[in-house]
């Protein structure tokens, strides 16, 4: 994050996304430039994901067509908001894990992919990652990703719900990419 400086990701003075608030920065370095994916909140308090690029010492330039990922359909795991993006490159694609909030404010991790980093497609609902046990089935969030060849390691947070008293722990997942047909 140091490359963006303190004022690089200010809330927007214009535009739809990030008009009132920005948060959850996640920076990747591609071909000599820093790209930041972030949560942007508009006046309607919709939290969606956008991207910006850093050029030299200028403020962050946001993508004009932001958001790159919007709210899910009614009943989806991310119908109430998106946040905490984690982006990486693997197998010739950009991948993104993000936290989705449903109507009950439960949090799960969704997956999306893109060829150019600007136009994203969400993966099928059955790829959504949720906790497998009662205590963590409501909150999975905060993914952080490291790529090592074909292996992608993901660290994320599991938590109880409601959050107080809380029991947040950090957990890791090893993800392997296998060449198969995407359906």
């Amino acid at each position, binding site marked *: 994050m140091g490359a963006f400086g303190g004022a690089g990701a200010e809330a927007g*003075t214009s535009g739809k996304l990030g008009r009132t608030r920005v948060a959850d920065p996640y920076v990747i370095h591609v071909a000599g430039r820093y790209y930041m994916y972030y949560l942007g909140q508009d006046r309607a308090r919709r939290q969606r994901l956008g991207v910006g690029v850093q050029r030299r010492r200028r403020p962050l330039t946001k993508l004009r067509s932001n958001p790159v990922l919007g709210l899910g359909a009614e009943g989806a795991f991310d119908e109430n908001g998106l946040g905490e993006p984690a982006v990486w490159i693997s197998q010739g694609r950009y991948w993104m894990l993000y936290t989705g909030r449903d109507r009950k404010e439960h949090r799960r991790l969704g997956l999306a992919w893109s060829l150019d980093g*600007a136009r994203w497609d969400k993966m099928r609902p059955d790829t959504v990652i949720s906790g*497998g046990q009662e205590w963590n089935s409501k909150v999975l969030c905060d993914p952080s990703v490291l790529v090592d060849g074909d292996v992608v390691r993901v660290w994320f947070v599991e938590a109880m719900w409601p959050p107080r008293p*809380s029991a947040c722990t950090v957990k890791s997942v090893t993800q392997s990419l296998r060449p198969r047909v995407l359906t």
Partner: protein
Amino acid sequence: MGPGSVQRRLQSGRTRTAAHRSTQHSTQSALAGREVGGGVASSKGSIAGCADPCMSVRAKVPAGTGSGRRLALIFVGVALVLALDGCSHFEAFTLPLQPGGRESTLRWEPHAKPVLARGGTGEWDSVDVLNPSIVQHAGLYYNLYSGFDARPGTPASPLLPTACVGPRWARCSPRARSPGRDPISRPTAPLCSQGRSSSTGIRPAHPRASAWRAAETRCNGCVRRSRC
């Protein structure tokens, strides 16, 4: 007060004074870098090359009189200021295409247990550990995470993104080369806490960068001592 109000006042045919006051206010907002809304364009529509962030406001400018022309000039000037202010931070771009774009799918192999649990009673991260950010440096994995101990002055709701207590922890053990397989050792105190300097001497002005340097220094020392 945004450009929309300028439009409404112009269309309603109010006095020049009222419209002029509006444009002055909008100009001040724009120059001050404040949020000014949807932007303004000329009377013919949006300004070329400036789409969404500077959406057009089609105003009916009174024509044919001297005051009308002056008002139109003022309006166009304000439009340019607002448009340039908004457009300068938006752009259409894509990230570079990556080679080897074969189709693939994912297979998850989750670890059964958390790799980082809460600290013990009384520790700085005894209630929550969250916001992990993993980086690899010099053959080691570092986890900069937030902790929460529920004491007054610390965030009340650590699940909010604003609840960052500060970058933390470096696992100072050669075993860290196999991430996620061993319980993680943690420092006895956070490197950064609510903008205050900790015992490690972190400068509050740049908590993240300073904390990172401190973590690196601390870890290097631990590696040399083969312990943490």
